[in-house]
């Protein structure tokens, strides 16, 4: 079954630094979330759709749904919506066939940056017990997916291994697992490989700053690698991370550079989380949109619906309420540095260096006027 019914465990009190840094001040590269909006009914149909990913070419959208409609279904399958150009609307998703879907559970898909590898979790035969991680490949985006391969016992265990997230460089695989050595329920782990030709190394726990006694899962990294979104698992029988809005919530952790440790997670707050179950945060390929699945009211589908919220970087570095050449000059003054104020690209939160990625994000917002009074009139 889709719910994870892990063993209940005693409540572990975790002190959460719940300060919302998003949108506050201009001392660091910051961004704001817009108002969440529910996806159109062509995507949110059939009962309990969950969002998986959009291909990096912007032409495929993957979701997963329970066959039969109820979340307790023993058969979840992937559906894919395919469009000809990025200007076209998404047509109704089509249920994928064999060899991707089976009569068992398939869920939590993500694509490699070249769109030629599809990582997902399944309890299909041939694994090492309960949920395992699998990968399917295709020679080109025009070819069909080949038969998925199990990621081997280096990655998979006899307990649940699920929700894979492959990084943009293809060298890190984040996922959640209930294997021994964690901090309770499930934790987020990461496996690494030196090159994409190499085998995965042994997974490493992300540590007690990120992981809690709750079911920590659904990791998703920004392409710059400085932001980690994740959530609890929305199984009513599972403990949720304290400090949230009631039920399952979406959390975010940051780090100053990809070699620095993750900072304490912050709850994304009532602007994004609801009092109902919110889970499975996923960034769009360009980092401009955060998708998530939620049981909040307002969607066309019963149960879960897929929602999205725009991510807007703060580009007005000098606080004069207009994005112009002055802000660009501040960026040039810090060119090549790890200068968080200007490190806005890739969205969100940059990549640890001021370079052309930041210039591209600034250019998208050039001449935008912001409401309010200039900070330094």
């Amino acid at each position, binding site marked *: 079954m889709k719910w994870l019914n892990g063993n209940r465990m005693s409540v572990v009190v975790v002190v959460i630094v719940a300060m919302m840094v998003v949108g506050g001040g201009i001392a660091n590269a910051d961004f704001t979330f817009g108002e969440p909006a529910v996806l159109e009914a062509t995507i949110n149909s059939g009962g309990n759709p969950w969002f998986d990913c959009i291909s990096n070419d912007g032409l495929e959208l993957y979701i997963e749904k329970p066959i039969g409609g109820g979340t307790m279904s023993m058969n979840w399958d992937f559906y894919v919506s395919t469009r000809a150009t990025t200007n076209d609307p998404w047509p109704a998703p089509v249920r994928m066939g064999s060899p991707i879907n089976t009569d068992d559970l398939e869920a939590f898909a993500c694509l490699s940056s070249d769109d030629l590898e599809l990582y997902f979790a399944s309890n299909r035969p041939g694994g090492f017990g309960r949920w395992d991680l699998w990968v399917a490949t295709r*020679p*080109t985006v*025009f*070819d069909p997916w080949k038969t998925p391969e199990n990621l081997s016992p280096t990655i998979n265990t006899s307990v649940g291994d699920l929700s894979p997230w492959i990084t943009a460089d293809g060298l890190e695989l984040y996922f959640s697992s209930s294997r021994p050595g964690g901090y309770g329920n499930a934790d987020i782990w990461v496996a690494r490989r030196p090159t994409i030709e190499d085998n995965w190394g042994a997974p490493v726990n992300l540590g007690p700053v990120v992981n809690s006694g709750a079911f920590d899962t659904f990791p998703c990294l920004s392409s710059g690698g400085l932001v980690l979104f994740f959530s609890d698992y929305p199984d009513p029988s599972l403990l949720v991370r304290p400090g949230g809005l009631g039920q399952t919530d979406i959390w975010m952790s940051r780090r100053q550079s990809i070699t620095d440790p993750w900072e304490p997670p912050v709850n994304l707050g009532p602007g994004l989380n609801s009092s109902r179950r919110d889970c499975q945060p996923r960034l769009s390929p360009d980092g401009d949109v955060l998708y998530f699945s939620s049981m909040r009211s307002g969607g066309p589908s019963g149960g879960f619906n897929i929602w999205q919220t725009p991510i807007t970087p703060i580009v007005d570095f000098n606080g004069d309420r207009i994005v*112009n*050449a002055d802000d*660009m*000059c501040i960026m*040039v*003054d810090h*060119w090549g540095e790890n200068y968080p104020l200007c490190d806005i690209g890739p969205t969100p939160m940059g990549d640890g260096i001021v*370079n*052309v990625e930041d*210039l*591209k994000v600034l*250019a*998208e917002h*050039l*001449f935008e006027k912001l409401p309010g009074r200039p900070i330094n009139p």
Partner: protein
Amino acid sequence: MKWLNGDKMRLVVAGIVAAVALIGGSTKADFTFGEPTNLGPLINSPGVDASPLITPDGLELYFCSDREGGLGEVDLWMSSRPTKDDDWGAPVNLGERVNSPTWDLGPSLSADGLEMYFCRGYGDMADIWVTRRDSVNDPWMESTNLGPTVNSNAMDCGPCILPDGLTLFFYSVRLGDPPGGDIWMTTRATVSDAWGAPVNVGSPVNTDTWDYWPSLSAGGRVMMFCSSREGGQGNEDVWLVKRPTTCDAWGSPINLGPPANTEAWDTCPYISADGSTYFFVSDRDGGQGSYDLWQAPVVPVVDLNSDGIVDADDMCMIVENWGTDDLRCDIGPAPFGDGIVNVEDLVVLAERLFEEIP
């Protein structure tokens, strides 16, 4: 026979970085060329090696050659490399579905890499042919003649298909025309429609001398071609012509100047999809014999205010002209720009930020 040959000129050319004024009436150059280098003895043979084409990923080089191992006269060959930093591998003949016992040359690939137009010559006649494949990993299928709407009963050669697949440029010597080739174009409404009747591109691109081997930028706004008109460096030279949009008339052709052009025969221009490298054909000294493939780096001019350094002042000029068609600031995508000052220009400038320009 006007494929490539002519009287061989032998002249030493001392070409190093030299600015090319590509915009009529402007003192600013769009880009300069670095020193040309010969593609070396693995690619170039003692005989004819010509009509280069580089795939958009930069990993495959198609060209024609009369080297040994072909099906006769000139054949199409392909060389590949694992990455852009690697050397080209040994060329492979494209085989009998593409090549014939006569002249096969002038390849042009569709954007998806599944259609290849090329020229097949017989004596003083030539036609444009096309071959297709189901995927980039599949072999080419049997070639077909483009038919009498496009091909005349004289010489039709040098096809260049635009990325949208709807416009095909080529050169032609049609019966009844004055001697010398002209550049023509044909269009179709969709990729499944037939090509329409060709139209002569007209003056000032075409003259009463030879104007041939058209090579267009991805957006169709810039065309390089080979011409024997007066005003060049000697023999055949490569010329460049622009138009503001594909609906406008072509401007005045400009000679690329040295070091791209010399007193030798310089022809078959091709700029890589990333805008970084100019490929061409020349029988200049320093080659492996006869016509060879050469390449030269394309260096965009990014010191927009000519103060000797690429810095925030140049960036501010782009911002001041944001959204306009200011030619001086329209440096991206390299090397031809796209008719509007936008983020593409910032990206080209950023690659050279803080560079000192002597």
